[in-house]
């Protein structure tokens, strides 16, 4: 669903249009489930987070006067619900990603200069993510990201929330969102590049 359609859906929900409730629940239950599933790691937790989030959205909808802010509000509640689940489950140490670790592999050439290696991405169609094997690779790569980077890539690139909205949801500055987004993208790119070059074992084929 495009962003404009999501805003219209929120407008109808707030106005009490009968069809909007069912549509809103179906749409955001799936979205919050996906986000939570990749953040919490457990299907059962993700379903609980989706239900808790929708309940809190309705209970607190008085705070959302502008339909355009509904999506960010939903994900802010979902993010907090995920944090509570994680506190109850395993402790995962936060790992910072540095730019240097995502530079393509460097080699010294005969002239003493540096050269880099990258896979040939030109043959990949733009809709490659729709192919099941690549989808599984991407999902695995997202799961392997440290939590703080995973949440940014899911909100910015998968949900296509703005930098400002993502910063508000995660309660960090916009610069932090930009930094984490870039490093998360580079990490995903590196993992996919290694898979394309055959230098990383494809975990999905051994699942």
């Amino acid at each position, binding site marked *: 669903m495009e962003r404009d359609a999501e805003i219209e859906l929120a407008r109808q929900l707030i106005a*009490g249009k009968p069809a909007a*409730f069912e549509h809103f629940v179906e749409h955001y239950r799936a979205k919050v489930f996906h986000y939570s599933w990749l953040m919490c790691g457990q299907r059962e937790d993700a379903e609980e987070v989706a239900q808790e989030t929708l309940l809190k959205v309705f*209970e607190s909808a008085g705070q959302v006067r502008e339909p355009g802010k509904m999506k960010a509000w939903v994900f802010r509640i979902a993010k907090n619900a995920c944090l509570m689940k994680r506190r109850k489950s395993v402790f995962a140490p936060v790992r910072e990603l540095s730019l240097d670790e995502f530079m393509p592999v460097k080699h010294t050439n005969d002239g003493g200069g540096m*050269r880099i290696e*990258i896979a040939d991405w*030109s043959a990949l169609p733009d809709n490659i993510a729709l192919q099941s094997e690549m*989808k599984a690779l991407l999902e695995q790569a997202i799961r392997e990201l440290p939590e703080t980077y995973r949440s940014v890539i899911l909100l910015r690139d998968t949900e296509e929330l703005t930098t400002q909205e993502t910063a508000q949801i995660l309660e960090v500055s916009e610069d932090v969102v930009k930094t984490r987004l*870039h490093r998360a*993208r580079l990490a995903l790119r590196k993992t996919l590049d290694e898979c394309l070059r055959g230098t990383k074992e494809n975990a999905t084929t051994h699942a």
Partner: protein
Amino acid sequence: MPLHTHSENCQQVFAVLSDYLNLELPPDACAEIEAHIAGCTPCVEFAESLRKTVAMCKQYQPAELPAPLGAAAKAQLVAAYGKMLAARKSG
């Protein structure tokens, strides 16, 4: 497999590539990057690989769906939505 002599310019492009792809760079910085990558095929290829990674994330739709909403859970949501509408009418 393309190989290419690395330079500081490449590293500068590497550091701001997401801002460039997001169209979030000031025009002068954008022009500098475009001037560099116009003559640097590996940087173009690296930028293209990152652009495709981002495109994949935007298209990504997880295969897993939540289980169908149970009657009790739906009743909870209907009740909460009813309260929300009532509060709006009275407010």
